[in-house]
């Protein structure tokens, strides 16, 4: 390896550890690489910053964040939780299952995990503890189930992967449903087995048909949101990118006019805070583009690909090795930066190992998504920790069994591509 690469790597890790904003770390290292190591006019970074944001696909980041904020400000979130509760709340461990299912519902609308932790966990953790669920179990389940936010489409991580690789976003979105369902199922089974042995648990009464219908009726407008998003995409009314716009319009309409749980005076604040949140993510994408520009000029992705290809010869070993690597990276890096930086490096290798790019993209999303709940830098751990008023060590122990379940699902998905690709093949005629 060239010494300049080692300098760059050391700079990268050192600067990240020094609490310098991630976007700026990537920007400056890219600038140093381009201007000093390659000798390109530093003006190029201005061009890259501008063009990296001049992309229509990024519309989804802004508008799905806005949509999530509208729903949290209004009452769509509570209604989704209520519905989940009516469906499974009466089973042993039912309230916890309802929490998992609500994460699934919310995931089908929101694009992010943190939004899901805040929106669902914030309501469910106090509710579960009130119903005498063991606290450690409660924290564990509500910290890990929000991974459904990035696995069940729409998903910001999947959108960025599709943007970098040019795979069809509509088809790629379809890969997330089966894995999302498997995670809901696996976590619910564990919950059922665990809660059966808990004599103290308050079990909810089985709702009457009338009550169930009343809840469904109350939640009708909220439940229509995913229907509109996916119905519109797959019937050709709008593209997957445009879906975010329609979702925002619909959410505004429902909260302001139907539910009236949001006031017009709140609109500006919700819009501005969503724009700032979106900006903190996209600013990283912009910084990563400058860094990526350096990598491209140096042809580093090709060099890494050649090194990997000449040392690994089996598809399975490649998938396992990358899986472990992503797990480690996910512990220290957020899913946005990791997707933007790693996809251009990993993508060129897929063809050589005969791996389907959509299958791989989904594995990468699940893999990095797990990183939300892994120490030392899992955001979900910190958020759940503050909600439950517990320290990071406690939360880490609490999430362990659930992370093992998710890793097991990941392994199944890794070695059984049909599970992931079956929906896009069936519904979209995807040839991969």
């Amino acid at each position: 390896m060239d010494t300049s690469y080692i300098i760059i790597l050391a700079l990268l890790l050192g600067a990240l550890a020094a609490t310098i904003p991630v976007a700026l770390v990537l920007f400056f290292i890219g600038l140093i690489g381009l201007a000093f190591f390659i000798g390109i006019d530093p003006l190029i970074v201005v061009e890259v910053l501008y063009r990296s944001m001049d992309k229509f696909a990024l519309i989804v980041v802004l508008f799905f964040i806005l949509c999530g904020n509208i729903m949290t400000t209004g009452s769509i979130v509570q209604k989704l939780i209520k519905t989940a509760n009516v469906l499974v709340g009466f089973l042993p461990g039912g309230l916890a299952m309802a929490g998992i299912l609500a994460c699934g519902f919310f995931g089908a609308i929101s694009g992010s995990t943190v939004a899901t932790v805040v929106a669902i966990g914030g309501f469910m953790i106090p509710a579960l503890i009130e119903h005498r669920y063991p606290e450690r179990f409660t924290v564990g389940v509500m910290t890990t189930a929000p991974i459904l936010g990035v696995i069940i489409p729409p998903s910001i991580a999947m959108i960025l992967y599709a943007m970098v690789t040019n795979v069809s976003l509509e088809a790629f979105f379809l890969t997330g449903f089966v894995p999302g369902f498997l995670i809901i199922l696996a976590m619910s089974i564990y919950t059922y087995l665990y809660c059966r042995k808990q004599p103290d648990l308050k079990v909810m009464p089985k709702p009457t048909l009338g009550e169930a219908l009343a809840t469904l009726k109350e939640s009708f407008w909220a439940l229509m949101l995913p229907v509109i998003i996916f119905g519109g995409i797959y019937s050709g009314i709008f593209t997957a990118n445009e879906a975010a716009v329609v979702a925002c319009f619909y959410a505004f309409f429902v909260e302001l006019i139907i539910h009236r749980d949001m006031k017009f005076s709140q609109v500006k604040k919700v819009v501005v805070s969503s724009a700032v949140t979106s900006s903190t993510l996209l600013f990283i994408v912009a910084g990563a583009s400058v860094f990526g520009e350096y990598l491209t000029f140096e042809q580093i992705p090709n060099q890494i690909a050649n090194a990997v290809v000449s040392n690994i010869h089996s598809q399975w070993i490649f998938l396992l090795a990358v899986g472990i690597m992503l797990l480690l990276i996910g512990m220290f890096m957020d899913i946005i930066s990791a997707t933007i930086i790693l996809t251009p490096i990993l993508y060129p290798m897929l063809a050589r190992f005969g791996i389907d790019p959509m299958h791989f993209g989904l594995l990468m999303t699940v893999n990095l998504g797990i990183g939300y709940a892994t120490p030392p830098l899992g955001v979900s751990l910190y958020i759940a920790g503050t909600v439950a008023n517990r320290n990071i060590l406690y939360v880490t122990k609490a999430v362990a069994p659930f992370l093992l379940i998710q890793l097991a699902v990941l392994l199944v998905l890794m070695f059984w591509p049909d599970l992931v690709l079956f929906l896009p093949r069936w519904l979209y005629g995807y040839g991969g």
Partner: protein
Amino acid sequence: QDDPTAAWQPSFDPSTAEHTYLLSNISHPAIEGVGVGYRIRDAVWERSDGRLYVDFRPLAQLGGERDVISKLRMGAVHGMLSSSVAAANVADTLGIVNLPYVVDTFDKLERFIGNEELFEEFRQSPRRSGIVAVDITSYGTYGWATNRPVRSLEDARGVNFRIAEAPVNVDIYRNWGLRFTVMPWPDVPQALQTGVINGLDHTPTVCNITGKFDVANYFTEVNYAQGLFVHLINERWLNRLPADLREILLDVIAEESAKSRELAQIQHEEQIADAKTKGVEFIPLSDSDRERLIEMAEPVYERWGDRIGADYLQKVRDYLEE
């Protein structure tokens, strides 16, 4: 799915070269007008005895076209096979090839390039931005790929066309009175599949190679323009190259581009034949419809004539109509 760039590794070791010419293109090297980059690379390497390496990066490896144009201006990228649509952003005169029924056939393209006086004005036009246009390659003739048969202008009115993102194309479609959507190229497959758009303004070669004919089974041969890549070079970089290498590079570009235009015409016909075997129907546009398209485009010639130079435009049109 094979990695399209893997088969195109150079057969020599470029690390010993004294100079590197970094050449970018957005499209797929299976298209003759793009693949020429690799043939330029190999011919230059041989003729310069390994002194000049043409580092060709197709498939938008160095970024989108507007992006690369800026990098070309500042010299971070040295050369670019720029689509003629994007090239109009470097100098208005380069956009002359995008106007409807001006350089609309392979023959007219050859005659345009062959006319010393007219082509020289075209080549020099971007010098203000520190760029020279040295040559042109082709990827076929523009028409409409649609998912329902378009046999006349009336049929076309019911279609929502995706067109390239450029003021001149917007202008053309507005004057033709057709529905159109401006959409980034990566969104096209989904949009075509789901019906967000049901027509595509492109060439048979590109539609066939990139699989657009899988969904859009009809192609109306509007033949209103040639799909071209304009070979742009940063002038400062070119002037700093030793004179002998500069001569080799420019000679090879001229020779290989001329060859590639012949190959592009063959490819155009082959791709049409191939598409026909897959069941794509090719529909000629009637002469009267063609006349109407030219008539309706009159404001376009006027508006762009002002920007390109009305005299020059008229000279080119007259010469090519002879």
